[in-house]
């Protein structure tokens, strides 16, 4: 089976209105920039997007929000996006906010064939509303269900034609658990390398989880909060 696609437009060709998508990334770090641009161009709407954050007003998922292509967001933190907050408070956008660890584990569980699990996170809060509570070791836990998606879209540093992936730095974040949970998982990589180049000992996501892969271009990799120390003294 050929997994290699030419570009984002080709790899996302059959993403349709009202589908559920998982998108990797934490803030703007490790987001599938090329696929997001392709989705904006395709003008698909009614999307349910599962992503830890919602981008900023003019980058990342913020681009899809601005064009009203997203019907519902499932996220843990959305504080960086004013347009998001506006659409949510006005009721235009459906939002399901869930604890970050539960979000990550629900994706992992979805990919690992575990339909639900108990976690202490959110017990006694509005997150627990309507969920089964059970005590383990004297501590209350709530039942959280697994998440899957029509498409999971992840971004990696390097990949090969088998779909084996290596991420760079903290751009790993939600990408590995989400890569496991897509009915179809699309990986965009900065560098598509020949088979055998990646050391099998250092693969983060084994290719079995990846159905499509392409080398993206023009990664902007925008920094959200640039924080630095003064320049090193040169002797």
């Amino acid at each position, binding site marked *: 089976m050929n997994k290699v696609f030419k570009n984002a437009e080709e790899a996302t060709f059959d993403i349709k209105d009202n589908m559920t998508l998982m998108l990797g990334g934490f803030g703007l770090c490790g987001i599938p920039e090329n696929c997001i641009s392709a989705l904006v161009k395709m003008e698909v709407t009614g999307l349910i997007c599962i992503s830890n954050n919602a981008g900023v007003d003019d980058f990342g998922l913020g681009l899809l929000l601005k064009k009203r292509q997203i019907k519902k967001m499932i996220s843990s933190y959305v504080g960086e996006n004013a347009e998001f907050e506006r659409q949510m408070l006005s009721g235009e956008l459906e939002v399901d906010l869930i604890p*970050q660890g539960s979000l*990550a584990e629900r994706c992992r569980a979805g990919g690992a064939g575990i339909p639900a699990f108990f976690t202490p996170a959110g017990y006694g809060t509005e997150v627990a509303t309507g969920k089964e509570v059970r005590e383990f070791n004297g501590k209350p836990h709530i039942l959280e269900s697994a998440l899957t998606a029509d498409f999971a879209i992840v971004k990696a540093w390097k990949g090969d034609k088998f779909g084996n992936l290596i991420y760079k*730095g*903290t751009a790993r*974040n939600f990408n590995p658990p989400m890569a496991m949970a897509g009915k179809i998982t699309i990986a965009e990589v900065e560098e598509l390398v020949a088979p055998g180049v990646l050391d099998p000992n250092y693969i983060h996501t084994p290719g079995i989880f990846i159905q499509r892969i392409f080398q993206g271009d023009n990664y902007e990799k925008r920094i959200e909060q640039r924080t630095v120390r*003064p320049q090193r003294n040169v002797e």
Partner: protein
Amino acid sequence: MLNKEGIAKRIAQELQDGWYVNLGIGIPTLVANYVPSGINVEFQSENGILGMGPFPFDGEEDADMINAGKQTVTLLPGATIFDSATSFAMIRGQHVQLTVLGAMEVSDTGDIANWKIPGKMVKGMGGAMDLVASAENIIVAMMHTNKAGESKLLKSCTLPLTGVKCVKKVITNLAAIEITPDGFKLLERAPGVSVKEIIEATDGRLLVDENIPEMIL
């Protein structure tokens, strides 16, 4: 009275050698600047770092190396990177010994609210609910009162909760306070702050012994 740096400095006194520590956004982040000498701790950032270092030098920042506050950071020798599911396995599995985070309200039973003001502000809970539900040792860093001068140390929280009966200590600009089965217990006064001022600024039950020492920073 303490400023933000002072609060961070006081919290840093709680650190113990060998601990893995998760610092939240805001004042908690500053705690990393005041680790006592002779104490080695490793900072965990829930987006996937153990062994987080200081901000990079100007010109050396890397878009692929950020902390949970989306700030550019560096790694210390021996650091590791991992995915979000693994990160929260560390947190939920109680492998992280101390969590320091900010709050909008804390109750005298140890409940915390810090993620939502209905109808006004909804940023989301991020990793806070997972952190407070699992960490054995949770310290809140915050101002004693809000901008309107109202106490943030309450009998019960009015805002949507982040976690129940979980906070162990609160360090504010006015005091160091412990949560006990009988409510808040005043441990120390901030420099120059009287017991009376602390009592007046605290809405929840507050236990006050006869001699309350002033913090030594």
